């Protein structure tokens, strides 16, 4: 069973504790720009959500990296950066369609989520369950269950 970080945007309150947990674990300081997970906040639409790397099977960042710094842990399904090989060229940030691999100025390196080797700190810090570390099919399974429940109630309504 493969576990992944899943995102439930409707549960996010925009508190940004995930960013704090991540940066504290990664650089030992509180600094949102060092965080591998970032919260997007659209106040006027009452919409907020964490945005975090989905660890693509065929990762754009990995293919774009000219220095061989980005590799794939096939077992854990995680895409990782070796900071010793990263030259700070930013090709990966251009290739990634989601903006979840970023260039971290103070270190001159690319940074991205590595799921903290199976113990993601952002999930531990999230107070509402907007971020979860769970079996990777769980979110879609929950959606199917919700759909089936809707079908159940609608079929009852139209029964003669």
């Amino acid at each position: 069973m493969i576990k992944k970080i899943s995102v439930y945007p409707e549960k996010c309150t925009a508190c940004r504790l995930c960013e704090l947990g991540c940066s504290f674990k990664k650089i030992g300081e509180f600094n949102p720009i060092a965080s591998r997970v970032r919260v997007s906040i659209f106040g006027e639409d009452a919409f907020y959500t964490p945005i975090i790397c989905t660890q693509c099977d065929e990762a754009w960042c990995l293919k774009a990296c000219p220095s061989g710094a980005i590799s794939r842990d096939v077992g854990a399904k995680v895409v990782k950066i070796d900071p010793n090989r990263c030259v700070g060229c930013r090709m990966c940030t251009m290739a990634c369609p989601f903006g979840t691999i970023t260039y971290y100025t103070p270190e001159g390196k690319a940074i991205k989520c590595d799921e903290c080797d199976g113990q993601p700190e952002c999930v531990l810090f999230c107070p509402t369950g907007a971020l979860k570390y769970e079996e990777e099919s769980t979110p879609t399974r929950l959606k199917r269950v919700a759909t089936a429940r809707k079908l159940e109630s609608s079929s009852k309504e139209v029964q003669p």
Partner: protein
Amino acid sequence: MKGWIGKILRVDLTKGEWKAEDLDRNLAQKFIGGRGLGSKILYDEIDPKIDPLSSNNKLIMATGPLTGTSASAAGRYMAITKSPLTGTIACSNSGGQFGAELKFAGFDLIIVEGKAKEPVYLYVEDGKVEIRDAKHLWGKTTHETTDQILSETDMDARVACIGPAGEKLVRFACIVNEKHRAAGRSGVGAVMGSKNLKAIAVKGTGSVSVANKEAFRKATLDGFQKVKANPVTSAGLPAYGTAILVNVINQHGLFPTRNFQQGVFEGAEKISGESIADQILVRNRACFACPIGCGRVIRVTDPKYACFGEGPEYESDWSLGACCGVDNINAIGKANYLCDILGMDPISTGVTIACGMELFQRGILSTKEVGGSLNFGDADTMLEMVRAIGYREGFGDLLAEGSYRLAERFGHPEYSMSVKKQEFPAYDGRGAQGMGLQYATSNRGACHVRGYMVAAEIMGSPQKLDPFDTEEKAGWDKGFQDTTAVVDSSGICLFNTFAFGAPEILEYLRAATGMEMTLEDLMKAGERIWNLERLFNLKAGLTGKDDCLPERFTKEPMPEGPAKGHVVRLEKMLPEYYELRGWDKDGVPTKERLKELGLE
């Protein structure tokens, strides 16, 4: 430095200059940060007798050593200045993201001095400051101002600004950050307006670091656990926001109704947190680093009152609702929205309108002075008055002076529901004796967040006290007041204290700053801060005689409900309180106590 950034930004608006100064670590240890450190700087740098709206006043925006960290709800900043409403020291606390961003931008505090010749705003970015022209922003609402400044600076900047009310020196104008969070009370926004300072925008990419990482992480996770285990912080506040209190306080008979003429509101159910959740709530919104998330994003669709914003909170729900006899949640939502965009404290706004309503009810005011009628329960007139106050139009110009100056002008100051000229929040002291004492002794006039005795007297936290008993209330009050001074100085939200107290805050502070501090030292710091504020007020010309309550609280028995027949027995509690504080019979701190506290 750890916890603190170690830098203070000083801006002289008269000269148009700024400089960064080093934070004195010894001073920071003694006064912690935020409210304590800001008050100390104000006390040292201004003569407490000055006119608060003159260029001699200073405005201090202060964060605490925990602001910007992962300590529970550690996103607070405070605005400290001399209040144009009370003449006392003012310290108004706000959440959102502004405080944390100020630290990421490289400063613990901003001290604003002097007065700009023409409207300006400050843009603070990573240790650098620009004093920018704001003529094009003058007259704009807080929302318009925020959007415009974001477009001129950085989309991720955090903007704290004033609206028309602050510009027009409404005595209870507030400072609004990120549109929906406010340093609300005591007219701190009017001080900003008097300096021609429209806004402060901050943006930073720096870090906040802590002294002991492992200990801080442990304290963080322990704090989350306690917030999760407490029913108020884990269930009540997230589900219904602070307005969950409407039904609770109403059932206990201390929900002030029609300018405190009653303690039970027949329309409470209609304006309750439950009704807000049912009718206008869109979603919860948390401040920075907050696991509670009490903020309410609301949308009113009724075309007459249509608006989209945050709130009402318990206080504004009550002040613009029950206190004015209004039970229409849509109208209250709209009035709260107007307070946000015009930039004024909804508590003082609502209670001042309610004071006008009582003066009208008693025939002291007529349609001639008001320009129409002003009846309790008239939602549309209440709304019109909110707007008129913000722009100081017509009768709104008199209301903008606050309830005390209004009632005094018409010869009846006894109908102003205020202490030291600041309006009461939503708890009638006749239904909670300790709260009554706390109102009389609060250093910024009537206020619920200087010592929230309701927690013990009504909600049973940390233990249930008989609300009608006066025994031992003085000691409880002192404990609550000193603890609150610690909370406000550390940079975390007071709502945490439902779930944990001073020992947990001590753990955070020790791990963050590396200070070797005992619980006794910490509580002494709280007491030191309280006494420093008191000294400011005494030097400003206030005396023990100002530790009083309106006659309604002390002489008019509550007419109905669970608190029926009660008055606040202040005369029983106040002498005991002075004694416990180490103050003389006139309420002046003794030399010995000041020496003990390191304030000689």
